[in-house]
C-alpha cells in the first residue's frame, strides 16, 4: 500500500485545481477506491476528498431527473421520485453491493468502479487492464464471469455496475467538469471498449470530475424493471442482468429500452430487442420473439457460452414483469 497525502477540497473549483496534477485521485464514498488502493492497483500520491462538495442532490429538471454525482446509492434508491418514476434505477441500486456499501458509495463512484475480473483484482497473473502489455489471462483461463459482448484479445472483463445498465437503458447523460469548463455526453459513450488501451475504462480525462447524471423524461421510465441473476441471492455481482422499460399505449409498445449487464465490457444496449418490440403488442409472443434476439452478435469464451441463453431468458422474464406491474 503506497502512502498518500490527503487534502479536503473546499469546493468544486478547489478540487479541480488540485486534480490537474498527475498522480491525483478523488475520493468520495471510497468503497472501491480503498479496495483498489489496498490491492496495490491504485497508488496515488495525493487523494483529494470531494465528499463534502454540494453535489449530492436529486432534483427534477426539464421533466427528467438530475442526480448529483455525490448522492449516496441508498439515498437515491429511497428517493420517492426515483422509486416511483424510475423503478429500474431504484431496483438496480438495491440489488448492488450491501447496505453498508450503499450508505457510503456515491453515484459517480459507482459509474467509475473498476471491473471485478479476478485477474485484474488479484494481480497474481497477467492483466492488460492492471499492467498494460502483460496479457489477458481470461482469454484461456477462468472466464465464466467474463463478457460475451465487446471483448477483444486484450481484455474480456465484464463491467460490474448495475446502476450503469439501468442508466444506459434510460439514455442517461453524464456531466463532467474540469478547469476548462463542462461537457456532457451520453453515458453509453462514456464507457470505452477494450479494443485499445484496456487500462482506460472510460473517456474521462485526468482532472475531470463527474458532477451529475441527467436522466431524461420518458413515458417508458415509469414502467421499467431490473432483473439481476446472481450465483447467490444477495450481495453479489451479476452473472447476467436485464434492464427493460416499456411505453405502452392503445395495446401497442410505442417505445422500448433494453440493456444488459454482466455480459458486456460495458453496459450493453440491446437494440435488436428494442426494434423487435417497437410497434408490437405487449404480449408473450412479442416478448419471446424479441428476447431471442438478445444474444445477437455475442462472442462467448470457453466457459461463458451459457450466458447467451441466460440473457435471453432474463430479458423475457424482465419484459413479462414490466407488463404485469400496474
Amino acid at each position: 500500500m503506497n502512502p498518500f497525502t490527503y487534502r479536503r477540497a473546499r469546493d468544486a473549483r478547489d478540487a479541480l485545481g488540485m486534480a490537474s496534477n498527475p498522480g491525483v485521485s478523488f475520493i468520495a464514498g471510497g468503497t472501491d477506491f480503498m479496495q483498489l488502493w489496498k490491492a496495490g492497483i491504485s497508488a496515488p500520491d495525493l487523494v483529494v476528498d470531494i465528499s463534502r462538495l454540494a453535489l449530492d442532490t436529486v432534483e427534477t429538471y426539464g421533466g427528467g431527473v438530475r442526480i448529483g454525482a455525490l448522492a449516496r446509492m441508498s439515498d437515491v434508491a429511497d428517493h420517492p421520485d426515483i422509486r416511483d418514476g424510475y423503478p429500474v434505477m431504484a431496483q438496480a441500486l438495491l440489488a448492488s453491493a450491501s447496505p453498508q456499501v450503499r450508505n457510503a458509495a456515491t453515484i459517480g463512484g459507482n459509474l467509475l468502479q473498476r471491473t471485478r475480473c479476478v485477474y485484474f483484482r488479484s494481480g497474481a497473473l497477467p492483466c492488460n487492464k492492471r499492467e498494460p502489455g502483460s496479457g489477458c489471462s481470461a482469454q484461456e483461463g477462468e472466464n465464466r464471469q467474463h463478457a460475451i459482448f465487446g471483448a477483444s484479445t486484450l481484455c474480456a472483463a465484464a463491467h460490474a455496475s448495475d446502476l450503469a445498465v439501468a442508466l444506459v437503458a434510460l439514455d442517461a447523460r453524464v456531466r463532467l467538469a474540469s478547469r476548462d469548463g463542462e461537457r456532457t455526453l451520453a453515458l453509453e459513450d462514456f464507457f470505452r471498449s477494450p479494443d485499445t488501451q484496456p487500462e482506460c475504462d472510460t473517456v474521462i480525462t485526468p482532472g475531470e470530475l463527474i458532477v451529475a447524471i441527467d436522466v431524461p423524461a420518458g413515458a417508458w421510465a415509469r414502467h421499467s424493471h431490473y432483473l439481476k441473476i446472481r450465483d447467490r441471492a444477495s450481495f453479489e455481482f451479476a452473472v447476467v442482468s436485464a434492464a427493460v422499460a416499456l411505453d405502452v399505449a392503445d395495446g401497442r409498445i410505442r417505445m422500448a429500452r433494453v440493456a444488459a449487464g454482466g455480459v458486456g465490457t460495458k453496459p450493453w444496449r440491446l437494440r435488436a430487442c428494442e426494434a423487435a418490440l417497437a410497434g408490437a403488442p405487449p404480449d408473450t409472443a412479442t416478448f419471446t420473439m424479441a428476447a431471442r434476439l438478445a444474444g445477437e452478435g455475442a462472442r462467448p469464451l470457453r466457459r461463458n457460452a451459457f450466458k447467451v441463453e441466460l440473457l435471453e431468458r432474463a430479458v423475457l422474464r424482465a419484459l413479462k414483469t414490466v407488463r404485469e406491474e400496474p
Partner: protein
Amino acid sequence: MTDHRDDRITFTVAINGHSRSITTHACATLLDVLREELSLTGTKKGCDMGACGACTVLVDGRRIKSCLALAVMQDGRDVQTIEGLAPDGGFHPLQQAFIDHDALQCGYCTPGQIMSAIGLIREGRATSEASIREYMSGNLCRCGAYPHIVAAIADAAGTKP
C-alpha cells in the same frame, strides 16, 4: 482539522458521544484507528476489504464498513461502535436478543451483526424475515448462525413472523 504537512493529520471525531482528538496517518482506516489508536477492539477486522461486515459501525447514524472508510474523512462526524451501545453496563435490546436466541457461536462477527442490525431497523427494513435476510446480506457469519441472527433481529425489532 490540522494538516501537519508530513503524513499526519489531527482531527476530531465524536466516538460513542465523546469528542476525541485523533492524530494519525492520512491513509489510516477508521477501523484501524478505532482498534489501534483508541483501543476500541469491539469492532472487528475480518476481511479488511468490505466483504464480511465484521467492521460495521454507525457514522452519523448510518451503518458503514469502517475498513473501507478513511479515518480523516470522519472529521466532525459522530461514530458509534458496539462499545457505546450499553453505557450503563446492561445490554442493548439487540444484544439481549442475540443472547436469548443463541445468535452466535464464535462471536467474531457479532459486533458487526449487531451494529448492522441497528442500522437496518433504523432504515425501516425489519418488515419481515425475508427483508431482514436481504438487508443483512453485508454481514457474513462463517459459523452459520444465520437463522438465529434473523430471529434475534426480528424479536428486537418486533417483526411479525
